[in-house]
């Protein structure tokens, strides 16, 4: 008779895996990648490939030679970090900066805490913020999207710079927008707006969001609470003084969509309970608007997420899920 296997129950598994979730996120990022290549040309692809190659390579080196442990790059988490890092960079950034950012993201942001599952901060954002603070010039030289045309890249300000401009001059924000409220559509689709790779098209990112919800990779709580907080807070400001930008502008511009859908929802660094997710999301939304309107930087999404990442353990401690009875 053959030897029977004995283990505690349950004896079946649902078939879900880390890989299924990670590659699900990657698929959801594809529409945005197509958009950025379409609008920014080969530069976008160049940055993305460099970022992914270096994050995966650094993770491999650290696991293989530093930890001397089985290599788990196949789980796809390093690829996601690479893509998200690239999506936070301008398409014209020098490649050595991309590699440096990847090293900080993987080495400092992820592996120093013990690898996947143990990091406190979103690795891609750690890399991004490191680059932003250390190399502010390169990081804020935004090319205006001109697709595959070979003319020299023209740089321009991201629309978010206008927020502070309007507040300084106390003019109604809508007057400063070239093309008025009409240009909000451009923000949505992405044509003609300067910015990072992944920020270019809100609609492509929302398409990815729909896919993630459909595959049940993430739940809707974090992104929706961020959107609601941003809309409400900026709405109140806009209503009190038209010099503050409108809620729709805040939602569609900059990294809000990318951050809310793909970075704030990072499993490892977001809270575990529904109530915690709401607090976390609202915190990110409010902080983003505070930084955008009153802070030194034009964009506050990445800082807001990192700050709320730091609050996550505390939220987990105090926000318990709804118990039975």
């Amino acid at each position: 008779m053959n030897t029977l296997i004995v283990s505690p129950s349950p004896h079946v598994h649902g078939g879900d895996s880390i890989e299924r979730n990670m590659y699900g996120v990657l698929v959801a990022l594809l529409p945005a990648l197509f958009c950025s290549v379409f609008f920014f040309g080969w530069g976008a692809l160049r940055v993305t490939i460099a970022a992914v190659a270096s994050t995966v390579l650094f993770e491999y080196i650290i696991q293989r030679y530093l930890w001397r442990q089985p290599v788990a790059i196949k789980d796809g988490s390093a690829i996601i970090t690479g893509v998200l890092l690239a999506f936070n960079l301008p398409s014209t950034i020098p490649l050595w900066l991309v590699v440096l950012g990847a090293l900080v993201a993987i080495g400092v942001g992820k592996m120093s805490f013990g690898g996947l599952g143990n990091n406190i901060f979103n690795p891609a954002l750690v890399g991004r913020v490191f680059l932003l603070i250390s190399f502010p010039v390169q990081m804020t030289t935004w090319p205006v999207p001109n697709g595959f045309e070979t003319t020299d890249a023209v740089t321009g300000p991201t629309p978010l710079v206008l927020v502070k401009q309007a507040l300084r001059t106390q003019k109604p924000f809508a007057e400063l927008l070239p093309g008025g409220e009409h240009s909000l559509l451009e923000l949505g689709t992405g044509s003609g707006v300067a910015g990072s790779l992944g920020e270019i098209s809100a609609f492509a990112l929302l398409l990815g969001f729909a896919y993630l919800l459909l595959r049940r990779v993430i739940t809707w709580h974090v992104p929706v609470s961020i959107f609601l907080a941003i809309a409400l807070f900026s709405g109140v400001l806009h209503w009190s003084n038209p010099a503050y930008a409108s809620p729709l502008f805040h939602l569609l511009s900059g990294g809000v969509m990318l951050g809310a859908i793909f970075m704030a929802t990072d499993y490892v660094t977001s809270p575990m309970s529904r109530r915690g997710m709401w607090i976390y999301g609202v915190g990110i939304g409010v902080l983003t608007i505070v930084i955008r309107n009153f802070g030194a930087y034009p964009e506050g999404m990445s800082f807001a997420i990192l700050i709320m990442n730091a609050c996550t353990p505390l939220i987990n401690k105090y926000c318990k899920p709804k118990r039975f009875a």
Partner: protein
Amino acid sequence: MLKTFTLGGIHPPREKLSSGSAITPLPLPERVSIPLSQHIGAPALPLVKKGDRVKVGQLIGEAAGFISANVHSSVSGVVLNVEEAVDASGYARLAVVIRVEGDEWDDRVKQRESPDRYLSAYSREEMLSAIQAAGVVGMGGATFPTRVKLTPPTGSRPEILIVNGAECEPFLTADHRLMVERGRELLIGTRFLMKALGVEQAIIGIENNKPDAIAKMREAVAKHALGIKVCPLKVKYPQGGEKQLIEATTGRHVPSGALPISVGVVVHNVGTVYAAYEAITMHKPLVERVVTVTGKSLARPGNYLCRVGTPVACLIEAAGGLPGDTGKVINGGPMMGKALASTDAVVTKGTSGVLVIPVGEALRKPYRDCIRCTRCVQVCPMGLEPYLLMTLGEYQRTGELERERVMDCIECGACSFACPAYRPLLDVIRLGKSRVGQMIKSRK
């Protein structure tokens, strides 16, 4: 809108391979080994010795205390020994081994229900003592003595009897077939239990993937019974969990650490109800039960009426023999069943099924670090945080485990089922639970 419980839950593939096969009596085995501890509580005291002749239904083990149950011989023949024999867990327990000779029943057991006696003819005490004498225990797996459950503590007032026909475990179909084939008897049994408890209302909860059982029970209810309602439920695991079923059918929430009676509800499995029916009308002790023998690799999955004490190997033989690629043999369903170390283990009062899993599907994958995806929190039907409970359990933080309400865990296994990192959440939580249990005990 179909009713179900609110928090968590999972949807494992149902795999009800044997739902269409009728209950078939299993040929008598050559020998049986009847454990004297088939229930929660004190083991029964043996009444027979080596060499004694016994008949089917003869009392061979007497209940030792209030929370205990009688054990009867399930076959007729000669007692070979009263000895320590390995039970399903491999630990030695006292059992009566009987060599089967013929099939001679004890004279007190009637072969069919007496046609001239109606419900009103049985008094409450008569029914309770019949159930106690027959050694009826909860047949859904918990094996709690039924008589105790039918005697609510003073001060509590039962209002509703819930008959658990959810059978939410994948693969198992024993309760399903019982409802399809013995609908009338179940109804009478339910009426008995209602009278024994003094309740006016009973609800039979059945998951919606058993439309034939729902139809059959509805038909029987329309014909016979007042105050009984059939409640179809949305398919979701663990619907058959006591607290989940109560919430799904009545909307009442049993508080943490309390028994269902605290909200005026008593739950009994359909198998138990059937056993109670037989005990009251025929004085038939609990010596046989329906067992689902199933598995994708088995030639003939089916539902067998078999005697308590029959070796699992005999059941598997009847279902086409143990396939060569077998990895696991499970006593019960895949979610909460117990893996057997050997097929020599025997069917007991609580065995609802025998499941055979091929080796390829039996082995667990190596587990990895928690990625904090919140799946376990989402699926937990008790609103706990399995990931946290596992970590606290690994570090033996017993005090914190208790504060995080580890004792609420119903061990349904939804967390381990859903975990994408294949973490053995329930293994560690169960250990933590037993440690917290010891701590609570030592406090008293």
